[in-house]
């Protein structure tokens, strides 16, 4: 595809910013190697805008968009998708309602028409609402006593108490039971609007044809009305250690410290620092100290969580109840050591080499490229970000790392939630 890794990381010109006749903007990568089209789109505004007493509306809305639209009831709509192997799905998170579409080129017209129907003319039939409600509640019950889910849920509940991010995005069995058709219609009317959406399209379609399809789908959306602003939040209860009691032999641990948002100029140094501390390869400090040297856990790591109105550094692991104390000590000790001594020059260089070299690996399928582009658009980083990003990583200095450590590790205290029966705490 024209979005070869090399060109994608070196030259943003291969991602074209397309504006259709009706003013729909999309980031477009044309590639005809594989006869498919992948679309990713993200609407600004999500679960954080759920009614205060009814968490779960945005997620339920996302689940209902493909459950009947236009003249097709749910079954007829699903049959039209299945008959041409068109893959359409929607999801909702704190800040956004998004979705993706994948189709063979020969079914593009039908695929975009079904997408238009789902976005513009969802039916919200009562039987579909009741079915999705029952599925959602069953899903919540299925996970109710999963230690990982319990730890995460409690972490957000404590860390963002009183804030929209502290509420469960999937809702609770009680809140989901209380959601009405009017709630769904109201949220649909507000959220699924033209001015809110970022779109990326990758595949075997040229700009002219794509423009026409984009106009049909997104050009049909209503104008945008302003949403209530989600107030900025800082991670709370830092320094607390909370145990969620559940009778399992292994404790699941979640821990967090302050963070830096993706849009913040300080993000990239923090990203490099996080990679060194607990990022996703076999070489991180936590992987080495927690797993390789001590066999404390199978999985351990950290990531930078970036919401519209909050940011944090978030970590996870799981160890048998008898070794929780040792595990927490290692995690805290490595954070303190890294903040105090910093990484060696070699360690910093290796981390940058990895992050630069591996960036391209995230652009190896049409679906992944579309998703990544839509995310970058959603974050407002600009279409040139892909070209700029590796240079930003390359320029991170030891001084930048020290600043980042100050901001994300703070004084080393963290909010820790442990689900299990830890001993010796």
């Amino acid at each position, binding site marked *: 595809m024209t979005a070869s890794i090399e060109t994608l990381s070196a030259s943003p010109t291969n991602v074209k910013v397309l504006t259709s006749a009706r003013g729909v903007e999309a980031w477009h990568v044309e590639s005809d190697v594989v006869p498919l089209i992948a679309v990713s789109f993200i609407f600004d505004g999500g679960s954080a805008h759920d009614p205060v007493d009814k968490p779960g509306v945005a997620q339920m809305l996302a689940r209902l968009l493909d459950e009947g639209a236009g003249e097709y009831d749910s079954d007829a709509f*699903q049959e039209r998708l299945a008959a041409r192997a068109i893959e359409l799905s929607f999801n909702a998170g704190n800040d956004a309602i998004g979705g993706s579409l994948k189709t063979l080129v020969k079914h593009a017209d039908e695929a975009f028409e079904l997408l238009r129907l789902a976005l513009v003319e969802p039916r919200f039939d009562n039987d579909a609402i009741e079915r999705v409600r029952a599925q959602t509640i069953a899903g919540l019950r299925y996970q109710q006593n999963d230690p990982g889910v319990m730890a995460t849920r409690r972490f957000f509940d404590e860390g963002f108490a009183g804030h929209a991010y502290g509420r469960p995005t999937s809702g609770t069995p009680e809140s989901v039971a209380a959601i009405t058709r009017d709630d769904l219609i109201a949220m649909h009317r507000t959220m699924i609007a033209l001015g809110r959406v970022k779109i990326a399209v990758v595949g075997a379609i040229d700009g002219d044809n794509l423009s026409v399809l984009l106009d049909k789908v997104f050009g049909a959306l209503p104008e945008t009305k302003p949403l209530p602003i989600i107030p900025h939040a800082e991670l709370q209860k830092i320094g607390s250690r909370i145990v969620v009691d559940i009778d399992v032999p292994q404790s699941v641990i979640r821990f967090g410290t302050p963070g830096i948002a993706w849009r913040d100029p300080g993000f990239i140094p923090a990203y490099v620092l996080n990679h060194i501390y607990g990022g996703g390869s076999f070489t991180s400090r936590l992987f080495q100290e927690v797993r*390789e040297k001590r066999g404390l856990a199978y999985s351990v790591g950290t990531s930078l969580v970036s919401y519209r109105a909050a940011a944090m550094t978030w970590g996870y692991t799981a160890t048998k109840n008898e070794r929780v104390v040792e595990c927490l000590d290692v995690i805290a000790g490595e954070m303190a050591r890294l903040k105090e001594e910093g990484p060696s020059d070699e360690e910093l260089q290796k981390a940058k080499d990895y992050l630069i070299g*591996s960036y391209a690996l995230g652009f190896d399928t049409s679906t992944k490229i579309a998703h990544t582009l839509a995310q970058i658009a959603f974050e407002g980083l600009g279409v040139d970000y892909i070209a700029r990003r590796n240079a930003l990583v390359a320029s991170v200095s030891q001084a930048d790392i020290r600043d980042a450590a100050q901001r994300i590790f703070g004084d080393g205290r963290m909010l820790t939630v442990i689900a299990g029966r830890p001993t010796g705490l």
Partner: protein
Amino acid sequence: MKTASKPILRVDASSFGRTEGGGPNLSSFTLDNGLDVVVIPDHRAPVVTHMVWYRNGSADDPIGQSGIAHFLEHLMFKGTEKHPAGEFSKVVSGLGGQENAFTSFDYTAYFQRVARENLKVMMEFESDRMTNLLLEESVIGPERDVVLEERRMRVETDPSAQLSEAMAASLFVHHPYGIPIIGWMHEIETLNREHALDYYKRFYTPENGILVVAGDVTADEVRRLADSTYGRIAPQGKRPVRVRPREPEPVAARHITVADPKVEQPTLQRLYLVPSCRTASQRDCYSLELLAEVIGGGPTSYLYRKLVMERGIAVNAGAWYMSSAMEDTRFCVYAVPAEGVSLSQLEEAVDQVLKTVSAEALDSDAIERAKTRLVAETIYSTDSQSSLARIYGSALAIGETIEDVNRWPVEIESVLKEDLASAAERYLIARRSVTGYLQKSAS
């Protein structure tokens, strides 16, 4: 990473082929020492996926040493004489590459994804650990603890995973597919260096391996690089023999229950013992593949329509078939009860629906839809070089051929309604089945 891969629904089970747009221009050859090589060109980006597959998986674990295949997979990252523990990972990471490994019932595989110019380095390291693994005593204990934590995470804290294990153990009364890939807790605890080394010497040989390279390379380049790396390993003379018992003809319908206080949402599962793509005669595996899609593939499937849409007795229902296996394998039907419906009521409803498959489920639209979806998946898979590498690697590792993989869409297209009815009638029967309940216990 270093994971025990579970059989994933269809993703793992099926395969690839082309009905439009031209196919990948595949090459395959064998080195002098017996190592098989497959090259899948994909010139969209200057990267390669480098994989080595070994024709041994958990079903080859010696009796009493369940989990050794998976444990050894972890230990393969622990260094050789030339390259101490962690060096390979550091090099991969420093090159901006990604790596991982996985163990399944029938195979174990290792892979890296790197920029094309680094392929040779990957081959040097990977061929080195094919034969020069050190296994110092000091790494054994901590890594065994890692695996025990992995098992605690995946199974010991999750009643639904416990049900899955119990059902497989019940379905396979004789064959090691009934033993979990990761091994039983009490046997993992006893695995030691000697077990690992014996296993390594037996299976990690060039004759037993398959090298798959997908990406921005040519067959000639790969052959040249492979000859100068893997090609230097001395052959062992022949491929190690896998001794696999055959399942007896099943006679007993089995019912099992996992009851746990943590369960708030009951579920129902049913497994049937069925032929795999390797054991099926009369093309039954294609029929079973399509049957699973027709009766249980998503919201337009027969089970979903009957149980969820029409009767409202379930909130979800479906089916899948794990065709990719060397010996007889599993066909699964599952359902999640609606509020107030007991698992026995739901089971009765599932059985009623399954009885009507031949008469009602097999209309030509439903069959056409299922074929379209299965064939489209093979086209979608060509968008990912790592998916292609996995599809061909796993097929060869269980004894299929490249032609088998390429023929798959045509075979699926040619399945007839009568084939589906016949497969349902012969295989979805009580004596071939295990039914599992996941429910809440009193305390």
